[in-house]
């Protein structure tokens, strides 16, 4: 079994490097007068281009460079993955659209029709990252009143309904969250591949839901032993149901020709941080929400934020990424060979798929596709180790 590698789509702009804080690709820059780039890149210009044109370039860079597709995240400040996928279906060829969405936000019949239609529009290139929401006030911002564990029950039921509809024929369902009577997908929308399901969430409730529906259980990068424990747990739960689940990791990387160059990039980004950036980070690190996954990410914050080296958890694993660009904290830093080796380490402890990301996503898609992916052994690495030992 070979591993699948995805890229990530930046849905709220990005800077031209980790050392640069101006998000001028896309129109998210807060800075007045940030006109160093052409309007087309900044978005919303009168020349007919907008930030989707940059996203389209990233998607094509990913498909040209050998990625299966890209994770398209959905947060309050981002553009939306359903929109991006339907808009870009025609101008991409092999790029698969991994749509992050919270099932609670859509009527499952609508979602089934959208999914089947998108499969037809894209020749079967839609898949999901099922997310279930961090909870707290953010959930009500989205208009969702359901509490944490209920949301996972709803996610499970939603996916049950989606699969029920997908089979074709008349489908009725009387559940806790959904009722349907004689629902059916039309002939025209039947026979499409069911979207592969990546599933994110770290709580026990999440694992229960994932064990029933996930093709890939997706986690942020965590310290390796911790991650292995998590993967083992979800595999054990899934085995009990007589299903098989694979595991996937979302990893930020900085890969350069030499390790020294990679760390120089990180150090420069770190030295560009202001005190305000660090205070914001420290405040975030102390928060606790009802997202178990986010709390696990926060648990490795060093006491003092003066030296980038204090964020090194393992060789080549750095936990300060969210300081530089928001999002998850842990990532891999090193030479092309080292990054490939760490990823192969993750394969050995249970990963079958990666969603990689590096800033800026356009140029780095080429770099990673050309320099790192060819070095990856995947599961053949395990075999060669066994042979060497034997």
């Amino acid at each position: 079994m070979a591993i699948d590698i995805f890229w990530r789509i930046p849905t709220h702009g990005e800077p031209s490097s980790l050392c640069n804080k101006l998000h001028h690709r896309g129109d998210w820059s807060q800075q007045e007068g940030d006109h160093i780039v052409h309007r087309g890149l900044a978005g919303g210009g009168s020349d007919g281009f907008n930030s989707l044109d940059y996203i389209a370039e990233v998607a094509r860079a990913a498909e040209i460079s050998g990625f299966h597709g890209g994770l398209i995240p959905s947060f309050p400040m981002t553009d939306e993955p359903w929109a991006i996928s339907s808009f870009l279906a025609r101008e991409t060829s092999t790029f698969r659209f991994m749509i992050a969405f919270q099932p609670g936000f859509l009527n499952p019949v609508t979602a089934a029709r959208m999914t089947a239609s998108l499969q037809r529009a894209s020749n079967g290139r839609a898949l999901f990252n099922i997310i279930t929401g961090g909870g707290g006030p953010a959930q009500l911002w989205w208009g969702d009143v359901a509490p944490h564990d209920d949301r996972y029950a709803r996610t499970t039921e939603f996916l049950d309904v989606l699969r029920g509809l997908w089979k074709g024929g008349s489908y009725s369902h009387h559940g806790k969250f959904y009722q349907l009577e004689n629902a059916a997908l039309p002939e025209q929308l039947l026979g499409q591949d069911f979207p592969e399901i990546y599933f994110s969430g770290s709580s026990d409730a999440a694992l229960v839901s994932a064990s029933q529906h996930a093709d890939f259980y997706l986690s942020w990068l965590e310290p390796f032993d911790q991650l292995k424990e998590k993967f083992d747990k979800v595999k054990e739960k899934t085995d009990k149901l007589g299903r098989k689940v694979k595991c996937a990791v979302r990893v930020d990387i900085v890969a350069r020709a030499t390790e020294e160059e990679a760390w120089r990039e990180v150090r420069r980004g770190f030295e560009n941080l202001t005190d305000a950036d660090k205070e914001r980070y420290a405040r975030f690190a102390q928060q606790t929400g009802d997202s178990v996954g986010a709390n696990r990410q926060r648990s490795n914050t060093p006491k003092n934020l003066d030296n980038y080296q204090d964020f090194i958890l393992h060789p080549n694993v750095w936990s300060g990424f969210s300081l530089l660009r928001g999002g998850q904290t842990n990532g891999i830093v090193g030479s092309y060979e080292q990054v490939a080796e760490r990823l192969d380490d993750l394969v050995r402890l249970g990963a079958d798929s990666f969603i990689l990301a590096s800033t800026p996503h356009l140029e780095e898609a080429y770099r990673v596709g050309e320099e790192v992916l060819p070095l990856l052994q995947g599961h053949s690495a395990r075999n060669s180790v066994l042979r060497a030992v034997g």
Partner: protein
Amino acid sequence: MTIQFYWQVPTRGDGRLADAAVKLRGERSNDQPYFTAGVTDPRGRQFNYYDHLHQIGKAAELAGFDGLLVPNDPQGEESWIVAGYLTRNTRRVKVLAAFDSARGSAVYAAKNAVSYQRYSNSRFAWQIATPADAAERRANGDFIDDADIPQRTEEFVTVARHVITETGYSFKGRFFEVLEGGFKGPLSGQAVPQVFLTGQTAADLAVSAKLADVHVFGALPLAELKPHLERLLELSAKARRPVQAALRIDLLVRETAAEAVHDAARQARQQGQTALPDQAGLWALQTPGTGAARATLVGDADQVIATLADYAAAGIRVFQLGAVPALEEAYRIGEQVLPALRARLGLTQQQAA
């Protein structure tokens, strides 16, 4: 005065009028080869109906329509996916997606709509309609009572509008709830999609006067339509907000009236009708395929132009036109009807998007 012309994009079966079986153009199936074994077919499975939808979108834009109407047909492709697909591949036309108020979270719909607006220079619009038939609704996972539909539509539009236009917005209704909602940064300040609502009842008109930018009437003879139209304009004046009137009507236009009547009669017979009109005019004829209008205007170009001009004179400001096959007829109507009709109404060529 501006008058806008939308072209309906069929989300399923589009084909030649005289074809009894509606086909999915561009689509091949392995079990039913399209050509005989004696002829090679280079197409394989490389194309499907979306390639044809793309052609229709382009045709309508090239032929001078102002917008595309993507109907919400439970038997066809999903309207938002089609709308996104067509929007990216057109430059100027508005793209009006029809959908149901049981679609899901109003905030999520609004947030998706904001991306559509950002990616299209604000060409996205909404037509919200919920099936009158309760069984159809239940098949859509929607167990709402008839009497509650207007309230839900109102809450949906209200929440969507506010989260698009402001921040710190809270709302607690019967169907939707939001706390401190509203889009920030570049997601703020986007145009709220124009809201089209439909229906002929007093309740429908009252909701439209309160919420709609455009109210869409089904095709009726002008004399029958007029009282409804006047009622809408009255309610809109009373509510002090302008609501435009739209007419959803299908066309069957031919070079001569005789040809149009001949084709209309053939189609009516295919549908099992026996008592047929024998002249041009508004026929109770349903165009096959998606989202047929309740009637079809049959005639030569001059006759059709004259009738549409009468509707415009009575106050219709948006025409939602449809015909099969959608690609060919978009050109026919774009060439033979729209320019002369616009000239007659004193309009310049198509409105800027």
